[in-house]
């Protein structure tokens, strides 16, 4: 499903964010990506959705070699991947409802279907009552949950979540983890970058630890930590 071979990424300012990443994730897996601040987790995610191009190396998603995709094909790749961004990336001028509906309008979903699906997913993240609010009127944790809702609303083949519980209280975080497990059980591949050791250590999954832009540990059912 997701393969990276000898991937390097050097930012224009010279920072080597990824330094020879080799990763293979199969369809249906649930993977935690852990690592210290600045290790390269977000960079790794940005490469998968082609927000960035690698400086070197090979990336395959869903059987497609990203290097071979034309600019025109990128949107169709992205529609198969739901992403919870670390900084949420919500449309600040739109309502909660419109934010989530956008992901469905893009794939030209039927208008009636949009309504049902948005309200369903808002129910899952516990914010049905705030559908008409503007996103600027939400608390930090509420924004994060809207970002999660948007990422899962069109049932993508792959769900990538960058620190999706950083602004959530433990109870809400666990409820979200329950949702992710459920989605995973229905066949969605999940990649979740996280600093939450409690979650990693409790809900045991495959753990990929990154440090200085390299995989330093890759362990099924591992616990939080990145010293190899």
């Amino acid at each position, binding site marked *: 499903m997701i393969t990276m071979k000898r991937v390097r990424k050097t930012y224009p300012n010279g920072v080597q964010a990824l330094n020879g990443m080799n990763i293979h994730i199969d369809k249906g897996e649930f993977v935690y990506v852990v690592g210290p601040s600045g290790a390269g987790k977000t960079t790794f995610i940005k490469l998968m*959705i082609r*927000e960035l191009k690698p400086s070197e190396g090979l990336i395959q998603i869903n059987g497609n070699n990203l290097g071979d995709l034309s600019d*025109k094909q990128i*949107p*169709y790749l*992205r*529609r198969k991947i739901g*992403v919870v*961004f670390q900084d949420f*990336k*919500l*449309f*600040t*001028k*739109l309502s909660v409802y419109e934010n989530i509906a*956008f*992901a469905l*309008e*893009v*794939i*030209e979903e*039927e*208008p009636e279907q949009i309504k049902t699906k948005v309200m369903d997913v808002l129910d899952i993240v516990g914010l049905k009552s705030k559908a008409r609010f503007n996103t600027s009127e939400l608390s930090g944790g509420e924004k994060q949950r809207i970002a999660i809702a*948007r990422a899962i609303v069109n049932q993508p083949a792959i769900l990538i979540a960058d620190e999706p519980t950083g602004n959530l209280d433990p109870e809400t975080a666990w409820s979200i983890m329950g949702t992710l497990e459920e989605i995973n059980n229905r066949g969605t591949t999940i990649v979740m970058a996280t600093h939450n050791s409690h979650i990693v250590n409790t809900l045991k999954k495959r753990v990929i630890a990154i440090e200085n832009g390299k995989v330093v540990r890759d362990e099924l059912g591992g616990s939080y930590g990145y010293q190899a």
Partner: protein
Amino acid sequence: MAIKRKTLTRHGREGFKNIRRNGWMSFASMSAVAIMLFVVGAFAFLIVNTNHLIDTIENDVEIRAFFEHDVDASEQESVLEEVESHDSVENVVYRDRDEGLDVFMESMGSDGEVFENLREENPLNDALIIQATDPQMTAAVAEEVNAQSAIESVEYGESILGQLFTVTNYVRILGGALVIGLIFTSVFLISNTIKLTILSRKDEIQIMKLVGATNSFVRFPFFIEGALIGLIGAIIPIAGLTVGYSYLYSFMYDQVPFFTFVEPNPMIWQISGLLLLVSILVGIFGSQMSVRKFLKV
């Protein structure tokens, strides 16, 4: 790849909504459109009328060709016919010395009467009054006519005519250059303003792309929005210019009989239509160019 009808509806709706969502920004763009259109429009009217004035002045240019005193009527007739058949001659009128004096006296106003006692021994000659098809051909025509042996002399204000055409041609070129310059300037200024409003929506556009929108999906609402900004921005200046010009026209008509402006109808509608068209195109152009820069995500 045809766009589905529901998606088209969605784009249209978003375009309208965005005007409202970006309220103040939309207003800023529209006022830039309105102001520049006003300036361009007013200037267009000015140019059209200046041209009209120049035409009027130039068309007043006539050649007076005076016959020798001893040329008889039949010879005069044959010269008239020959001149008439000339390619560059628009119009020829015969004016004998008597008529010549009448015209002269009239041109002197009340002073003229004192010349009535000249009629007996009228010092004027019989003449042909000639107009060239193109006023700028006047000198050439005059020379050819003067070459005729029956003609004693020609008069066409040669001292002033060269200058007149220098000035009128200059004004025409300058006016044309200014209009073109002004239009480019306006296009630049309007799309500049639109660019500024879209720059502030850079993040928005990039998020759309990251969530899987195609370029055309992002662009379409901006297309509608740009067209609407052009359209709405054009209404006030067009209305203002139309009313203003009609008023000015009738004022001039009443007050200044010796020069009338170009009739409002249909000129006003042509200019308005042109302004509207340009305005909408610039709105679309400005928004599309600006969006384009942020699509590379």
